[in-house]
């Protein structure tokens, strides 16, 4: 335990740990108190809506960290990360569908969409999904396995740059079409919704929502520390070296395929976990999560926050999605224009993202 603890201690400086500790206190102590303990009229009361929004944005932040590992640090732009997020979400969604029991519209053992299709039994790939542990296993294994197999062939064939991005985009699009089909057995274009309970607790109460938000916060902090441990290790330096001069890495005796495959698979698994935390909080998963635009948006979060900075990625996901939830209420029809404009402006004027802006202003003052 000793060397491990000291290794983790070195990931951040004193100020970094204090900041992280402060975030943990806010998320795990102040938010629950302000939401659950205070009366609704109180000045410091935090609404269920804010809690749900915070939880949702933190799921996106986890995805942004995963994206930053593969794009910011390794230089591989994936435009298909929404797929891994959605697959994790669907795996969790299967469990949540099973937990509805007979409380559906048709009061059947089967989910409503299966009754509607006149199916008499669950298809084989729904086996065991009524066990939480098995669903949790799927959350990790399905995105991980798909990423591993896809990555194995793509990296071995030395597909890189824009070609890789386009293929990942095509991959998520293909899966979206597959999941749109009713016969695929995942609810077609409606996906899964109307969840009732998770682990025996009713899903829509303030307490359950709070627990899910806290779990997401813990997952985000663990993801950040895991990613930090990777980028601070020699492995992380090899990844950045692959980004900057892959041929030199190869002629130095490293096999870049193994390194890319490792970080690509790890990144996909992290996305899957984020998706699994996301679905019970927003109460729905459908194939639109696999749409190419969603995956592109993930890249925009990281670009806005700052490629090659983990805190930047989290910041970017928070800023863009915060702006999104404000703007889509005020001017819903202009959101996509705003997003496009944001991407152009950041690319032109802020190549290091918001975190680069903060850094350079700090250096100016110093």
């Amino acid at each position: 335990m000793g060397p491990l603890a000291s290794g983790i201690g070195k990931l951040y400086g004193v100020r970094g740990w204090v900041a992280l500790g402060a975030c943990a206190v806010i998320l795990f102590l102040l938010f629950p108190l302000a939401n659950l303990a205070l009366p609704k009229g109180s000045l410091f009361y935090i609404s269920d809506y804010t809690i749900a929004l915070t939880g949702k944005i933190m799921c996106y932040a986890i995805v942004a960290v995963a994206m930053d590992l593969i794009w910011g640090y390794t230089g591989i732009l994936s435009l298909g990360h929404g797929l891994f997020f959605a697959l994790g979400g669907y795996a969790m969604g299967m469990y949540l569908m099973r937990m509805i029991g007979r409380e559906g519209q048709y009061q059947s053992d089967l989910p409503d969409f299966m009754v509607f299709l006149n199916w008499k039994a669950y298809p084989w790939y729904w086996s065991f999904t009524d066990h939480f542990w098995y669903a949790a296993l799927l959350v990790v294994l399905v995105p991980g396995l798909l990423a591993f197999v896809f990555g194995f062939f793509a990296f071995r064939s030395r597909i890189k740059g824009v070609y890789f991005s386009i293929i990942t985009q095509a991959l998520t699009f293909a899966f979206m079409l597959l999941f749109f089909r009713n016969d695929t057995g995942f609810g077609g274009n409606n996906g899964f919704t109307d969840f009732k309970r998770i682990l025996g607790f009713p899903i829509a109460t303030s307490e359950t929502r709070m627990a899910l938000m806290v779990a997401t916060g813990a997952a985000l902090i663990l993801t950040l520390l895991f990613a930090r441990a990777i980028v601070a290790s020699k492995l992380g330096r090899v990844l950045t070296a692959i980004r900057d001069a892959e041929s030199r890495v190869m002629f130095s005796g490293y096999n870049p395929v193994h390194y890319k495959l490792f970080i690509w698979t790890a990144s996909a698994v992290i996305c899957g976990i984020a998706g699994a935390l996301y679905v019970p909080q927003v109460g729905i998963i459908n194939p639109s999560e696999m749409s190419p635009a969603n995956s592109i948006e993930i890249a925009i979060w990281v670009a806005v926050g700052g490629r090659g900075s983990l805190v930047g990625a989290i910041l970017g996901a928070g800023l863009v999605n915060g702006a999104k939830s404000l703007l889509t209420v005020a001017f819903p029809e202009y959101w996509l224009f705003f997003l496009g404009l944001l991407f152009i402006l950041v690319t032109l004027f802020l190549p290091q993202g918001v975190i680069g802006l903060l850094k350079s202003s700090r250096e100016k003052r110093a």
Partner: protein
Amino acid sequence: MNAAVISDPDSFGGGAAAGGRVLSPGVDVSHKAILYLEDISVSFDGFKALNKLSLDIDDGELRCIIGPNGAGKTTMMDVITGKTRPDSGSVFFGQTIDLTKLTEAEIAHAGIGRKFQKPTVFEQHSVFENLELAMKTDKRVRASLTARLDSAQRDRIADTLALIHLAGEADRHAGLLSHGQKQWLEIGMLLMQEPLVLLLDEPVAGMTDEETERTGELCKTLAGQHSVVVVEHDMDFVAGIAHKVTVLHEGSVLAEGSMEQVQNDARVIEVYLGR
């Protein structure tokens, strides 16, 4: 002309890569030669970059390779390092290791280090980290995740920094170095790999006279402990360091011998020196 196209470090051919393992250092040099190239032919879209090239490099020797543009110098290095597969012919490292069967990473691990024509270092890493990454060690993913430098390794990096005159720049980003310093850093990275053979593609391109002279000294020191193969256009530099010179022309060996012999060879004068 072909040299410019195929020396682009990003234009790799396809093919499986499976390396990263530490190969046992069993390079058999009992017959004096460390590198054998025999009847190598490579063609690109009908252009014969190498045409039945045969060449031996002795263990510990310093060999200079010259030749006009398009003579096949860089392609020869590509074949040795596994970047280009020959259409025919064989490449052996020592008596036993068939280089045409290994990946780039495996060849590097076996003990062949290569410096590119255009200096290629990790620009976003410090000079120290560049040497750390190049150092001979277990280069698999899991080993890299837990790797920590011990004091012997730190000493080795410090020694190399002194040798390549970059001790004062250890913490600077490699991208901020001058062109000549990058060339030196790349040579330093090769040395960290502890290679048996060093392939240097135009090591003094873009260097000042003083830097060129220092590089010449370095090449001479390295020969003996390593076999050094230098491809260079700078004739003064070659004349200053070479014992044995090989002249390539149109993908095969035109002449071989001391600088003086080569310079007086009528065919060499015609195709290269006399122009």
